[in-house]
């Protein structure tokens, strides 16, 4: 290493490293796709690829919500049951009250935002650790979903077009060859918006700053509580979108569903290179992480690997992904 090269290398170091991890996750995804394509001719079919994307949409949206919270240095364990709660709210508005479809969608997203607001307030104002606060919210929302729905699924049979939100394909009407489901397009839209908020807005900047050093932000005269609550509320709203998506896909709100989804979401975030200690992470990485999980599940199913073993493999991938990140930081 020559002296002249030293400052240049130091300067570009952090940015290269971020790109490197995305590259690593991305190469992992490509490697999986290639491997499954070689292993089975059924994998690389348009129908199958669309199915993978469709299967990613709900977890992808949830994982994006989790990414925002995790970058602040927090954690949100309630995304799974909050998603169900939002779906149930949509069911109440559309099926019980018989109101028009847009109101159901808005209501679900609003419910998510309000719940995020409540979690954020408990964390920021009452200083309850995020793990505990959202664990509590997770159970509260699970219970409320069952109470409100009377423990029975709410079907959307009276709202024609509701299941088109996720399953229909606006793209397919324009280009019949690639009928990308709306659910996937919604995932991409949410990703774009979240990436924009993180990268370009004050809320995004404070999200990273909070995860980097909350006390320094507070002592800079910033209303830390307000921004933190804002992040949780935004994440809640995004979870509301996921609630609409899953309800649309199932054409029903299943109140018993939801628990466990938060862990899939966190897994996608971690595989995507977001640091659980906060201050670092990308939406693109999370998207790739969510895709890796779906590709794995899909590919292993095509190869007739039992469901149980798919779970084992996903677990291994999570540990490998984080270990790769640790290796990278050690060698850097």
């Amino acid at each position, binding site marked *: 290493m020559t002296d002249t090269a030293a400052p240049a290398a130091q300067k570009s170091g952090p940015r290269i490293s971020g790109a490197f991890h995305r590259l690593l996750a991305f190469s992992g995804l490509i490697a999986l796709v290639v491997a499954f394509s070689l292993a089975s001719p059924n994998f690389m079919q348009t129908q199958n690829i669309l199915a993978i994307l469709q299967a990613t949409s709900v977890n992808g949206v949830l994982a994006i919500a989790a990414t925002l919270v995790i970058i602040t240095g927090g954690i949100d364990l309630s995304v799974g049951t909050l998603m169900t709660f939002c779906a149930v709210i949509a069911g109440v508005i559309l099926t019980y009250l018989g109101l028009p479809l847009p109101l159901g969608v808005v209501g679900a997203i609003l419910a998510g935002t309000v719940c995020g607001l409540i979690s954020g307030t408990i964390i920021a104002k009452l200083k309850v650790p995020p793990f505990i606060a959202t664990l509590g919210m997770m159970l509260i929302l699970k219970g409320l979903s069952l109470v409100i729905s009377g423990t029975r699924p709410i079907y959307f049979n009276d709202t024609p077009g509701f299941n088109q939100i996720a399953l229909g394909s606006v793209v397919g009407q324009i280009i019949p060859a690639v009928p990308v489901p709306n659910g996937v397009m919604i995932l991409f839209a949410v990703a774009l918006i979240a990436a924009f908020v993180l990268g370009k*807005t004050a809320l995004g900047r404070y999200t990273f700053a909070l995860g980097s050093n909350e006390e320094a932000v507070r002592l800079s005269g910033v209303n830390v509580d307000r921004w933190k609550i804002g992040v949780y509320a935004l994440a809640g709203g995004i979870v509301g979108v996921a609630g609409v998506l899953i309800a649309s896909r199932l054409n029903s709100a299943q109140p018993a569903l939801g628990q466990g989804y938060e862990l899939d979401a966190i897994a996608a975030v971690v595989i995507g290179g977001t640091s659980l200690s906060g201050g670092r992470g990308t939406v693109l990485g999370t998207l790739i992480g969510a895709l890796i999980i779906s590709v794995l599940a899909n590919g292993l199913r095509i190869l007739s690997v039992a469901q149980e073993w798919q779970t084992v493999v996903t677990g291994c991938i999570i540990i490998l992904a984080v270990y790769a990140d640790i290796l990278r930081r050690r060698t850097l």
Partner: protein
Amino acid sequence: MAGHFAPASPADAAVPLANPPVPLVEMTDIDKSFPGVRALSRARFELKPGEVHALMGENGAGKSTLMKILSGVYTRDAGSVLLDGQPVDITSPRQAQSLGVGIIHQELALMRDLTAAQNIFIGREPRRFGILDEGQLNRDAAAIFASMNLKLEPTVKVETLTIAKQQMVEIAKALSYRSRVLIMDEPTAALNDAEIAELFTIINRLKAEGVGVVYISHKMDEIKRISDRVTVMRDGEYVGTVPAADTPIETIISMMVGRTLSNEALVIPNTADAPVALEVKNLNRGREIRDVSFAVKKGEILGFAGLMGAGRTEVARAIFGADRRESGEIWVHGKRVGIASPKDAVEAGIGYLSEDRKHFGLATGLDVRNNIALASLDRFTGLGGVLDEASMQKEAVGYIGQLSIKTPSDTQEARLLSGGNQQKVVIAKWLLRDCDILIFDEPTRGIDVGAKSEIYKLLNALAAEGKAIIVISSELPEVLRLSHRIAVMCEGRLTGMLPGGASQEEIMRLATQRQSSVAESATQRRTA
């Protein structure tokens, strides 16, 4: 380049002769590179038994890296390490311990919830029939404390101890490994004068027993008091070794910075007629702040002197709204302001630069640009909350030039800057926010000598521009050098307000003027 990795081992050529004083430690031609940075280049260090050897150099000179190689935290790229004349390859802290090399880190590495004895013997607790033998543990610890002539209960919880006592526990831990080499990294950073004296007594006792002590510090007077020899490093290289007693401080400083520092006198503009910028009336909080009132004028630097725990930082944090206050009024530019949070203080134009930059000042993961903009993001926020990066960059680059912040670019991560430059980034943050009242808490802590005088000049320039500045410092020469007036505190009370030219003795008299005993006996009488 290849030469550094060639197996250069002077050891196989130089079999130690019967030369009586074999050095305890001999490090020769040590190279160490990290990606993008060469930390050490042909560095050298020698330590004799029973010697206190100071290791000096500006931040980034490579002192800590060299000692981390000696204590097994890092492995060297090239060079040789000899212990008692025998070449050794220290590859882990554990191995260093077993070879008798102990290190006391700047940040104490104790488990706060365990007792002193449990801390000392962590990982090698005495057992009986597989069960921990607490009695033996405490007896062993007591024996070490006795050998250090230290009055400390082995069963006391570490979190209840003062920083100085915690340091003693660290030293006891190092000694329990029968360390013959003890590395101390800035051991007095958090100690008051009495505690420093206590530490030095113990160092002298260790010295008499033949232990070699490596003493890393920035404090020149301590180096002169405690050490036998001084080795100076600069930019990862060995500069020279000189006897501590006969070498003038100026010589050592010029070895460190590579040039002679002119200690130019402070230009003190007359601030007598200037309007008052900040006035604090009857500030109170528990035992920490007792009825503190003072005023700072525009263009004035008010120094705050006092011993550790006198309540100076507490006053600053209470004014800034970082901590709650029980009573007291704060007036800014003749208007009373309600300050309940740092946000209110910043809106009133008050900026606070914490003594602990890493924890309270910088968002170290963010880049320089965002740290400078951190308190002013609202100003760069346009429609829909979108940040105007171009203006942020323009402002950041402007301040990087104005304050001569040494950074490759405004997108460099703040944690990669040196202490002095990090401090300048925090200053830029408040200047960008248009704060005209700046509170500096230990502005040069952990900053090397060269950068110190630059920070001093900057503070003078800010005052000349009309900023009202409060400087809290535990280093008296710093307070005397900077301040137009000096406020002295003791045990939460403002014990005096002195003019800039006050003598150190006068300040110390006020800083030790205890009133609590009087007050407490009065309270007791009242309750009785």
